[in-house]
């Protein structure tokens, strides 16, 4: 394996930390030191892109691809640079198409290709690309959001709303909100082994939440049952049981335990959340969801997700203006919340404000790509492969 030159390593560290200016300097030092391979140019493209310097990003990414036509991270940066610069949708489509051929299993290539097609007015091709993305990864929320917006444009909100809800279920923001309401955070410490948890209610409940955070649903439920065996009206335990039922698609069960929780402790936020989500997932109970999420948005006004959930239920009631206002509040609280951006795009589409809707879709795509850390994942894989290629 070729050991990278120190300037390149420094440039990578600075780029990962977001220090664009110093990362550019370090990357140029790497080039001056003779590190002129595709990896350096791909890194430089990403650094320029992070600073919104689109033309230099295009130049660097193009150079990387000239040196190595299989440099996947460079394709990503090139396509993103074309997309964000604007007015270059034809080039963007070509790049994403090329990337999808270089790495056919790369979901983001198909998602981005769809978005480039959509921006160019080729909706049928866009839908095909997003469907291909879901074929590769059925849990890709962004492809689902895009398909829901396409369905909205063609067939209206009644047809599109289930798609938005499904995308929301796939979106990590949903569970994140539940645990935020429960006051449970991921501190990087693994959940305890259920067999070693202290046999008291508090310890068991804490461990159950920790296990649920790690998606160990069955172990979490085992501990919840132990808590309820001791105190069957423990509201937080009932609400957590509801969350676990929701994760397994057992909507009516979740509804029953959430209603029980609220009958003993009416102001348990996580029980309110579980009840609203159960209502939202049932085809005939959207009106009830709107009441519950409206109350939750009033009770938790400082979290964007409470407004997103409220907005989605308002869409189901055809209160599009109120839904738009709720989405706007969510975006104001967290401009990086992808689900809020896509939802706002839907509300703007219904209002006939298509230019603003497209802007929101572009912002959603930007933030989704960043939160997924796509570039660094591809760059690290490329770097690891580069060492292997040079060994052979």
């Amino acid at each position, binding site marked *: 394996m070729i050991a990278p030159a120190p300037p390149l390593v420094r440039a990578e560290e600075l780029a990962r930390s977001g220090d664009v200016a110093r990362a550019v300097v370090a990357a140029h030092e790497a080039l001056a030191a003779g590190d002129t391979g595709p990896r350096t140019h791909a890194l430089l493209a990403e650094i320029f892109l992070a600073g919104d310097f689109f033309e230099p990003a295009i130049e660097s990414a193009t150079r990387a691809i000239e040196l190595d036509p299989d440099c996947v991270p460079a394709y990503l940066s090139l396509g993103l640079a074309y997309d964000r610069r604007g007015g270059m949708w034809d080039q963007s489509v070509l790049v994403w198409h090329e990337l999808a051929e270089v790495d056919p299993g790369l979901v983001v290539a198909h998602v981005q290709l769809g978005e480039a097609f959509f921006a160019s007015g080729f909706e049928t091709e866009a839908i095909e690309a997003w469907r291909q993305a879901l074929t590769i990864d059925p849990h890709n929320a962004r492809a689902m959001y895009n398909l829901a917006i396409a369905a909205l444009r063609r067939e209206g909100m009644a047809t599109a709303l289930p798609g938005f809800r499904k995308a929301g279920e796939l979106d990590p923001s949903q569970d994140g909100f539940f645990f935020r309401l429960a006051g449970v955070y991921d501190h990087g410490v693994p959940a305890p082994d259920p067999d070693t948890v202290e046999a008291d209610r508090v310890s068991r409940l804490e461990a159950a939440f920790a296990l649920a955070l790690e998606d160990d649903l069955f172990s979490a439920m085992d501990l919840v049952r132990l808590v309820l065996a001791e105190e069957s009206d423990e509201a937080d335990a009932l609400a957590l049981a509801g969350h676990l039922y929701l994760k397994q698609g057992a*909507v*009516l069960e979740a*509804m*029953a*335990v959430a209603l029980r929780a609220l009958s003993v402790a009416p102001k348990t936020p996580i029980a309110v959340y579980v009840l609203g989500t159960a209502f939202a997932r049932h085809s005939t109970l959207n009106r009830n969801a709107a009441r519950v999420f409206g109350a939750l948005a009033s009770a938790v006004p400082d979290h964007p997700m409470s407004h997103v959930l409220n907005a989605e239920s308002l869409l189901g009631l055809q209160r599009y*203006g109120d839904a738009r206002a709720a989405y706007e509040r969510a975006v104001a609280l967290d401009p990086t919340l992808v689900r809020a951006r896509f939802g706002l795009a839907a509300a703007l589409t219904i*209002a*006939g404000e298509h230019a603003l809707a497209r802007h929101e879709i572009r912002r959603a795509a930007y933030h989704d790509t960043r939160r997924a850390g796509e570039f660094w994942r591809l760059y690290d894989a490329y770097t690891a492969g580069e060492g292997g290629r040079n060994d052979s």
Partner: protein
Amino acid sequence: MVHDATEDLFRALAKRDPAKAIDVVERVRAGGMAQDRLFDQLFAPAMAVLGGAWADGELDEYSFTRAAAAADQITSFVTAPSAARDTGVTVVAGTMEGDSDAVDKDVTAAALTEAGHRVVDLGTGVRPAAFLERVGETGARIVLVFAQTMAAATAVVRVHEMLVAGGRDDVALLVSGGPFRADGRLAHAVGAAGVVNGAEEALEIVGRAARRGGGAG
């Protein structure tokens, strides 16, 4: 009585007997409870009892799941109908001749249909005469013309002229689209009664017509 009914409903669900559960619902409704109160005052309390029975250990996991399935089967009996009632209002909608944009039309038409209005969607590139013909066939009193280009928007005056010439000046001509949003005078210039900005405004305007009974077709 409602308390007894709640207990009866819970028992029926716990025994996985949807037929018995429906009987309970019907009994309560026959006793005078309005349809829109059944969920809050009967179903939800019974479900809370069901949740408590699971938490107490009175119901095991399997029984709880079966009871939930029974509850799912009766939700339509305790909720209002999900499909909106037919309002009797007919709207003829279409994108003006010379314009092929369908998005606003499709979104608005779908919203109006979902709200229970009858929408006759003529598609895109619609000739002025087609609006008049369809009004005659359906008895509609609202025509909604979409136009996203300036040329198509100004051409909407031909729809107005057609309606007047056909003796249908009782029909409300509404317009929608970017040109009308940008120039507030354009709608008046083409003889339109108003501008619809988005699906929600269309719902408000047509809803008002439905309540007045003036748009019945």
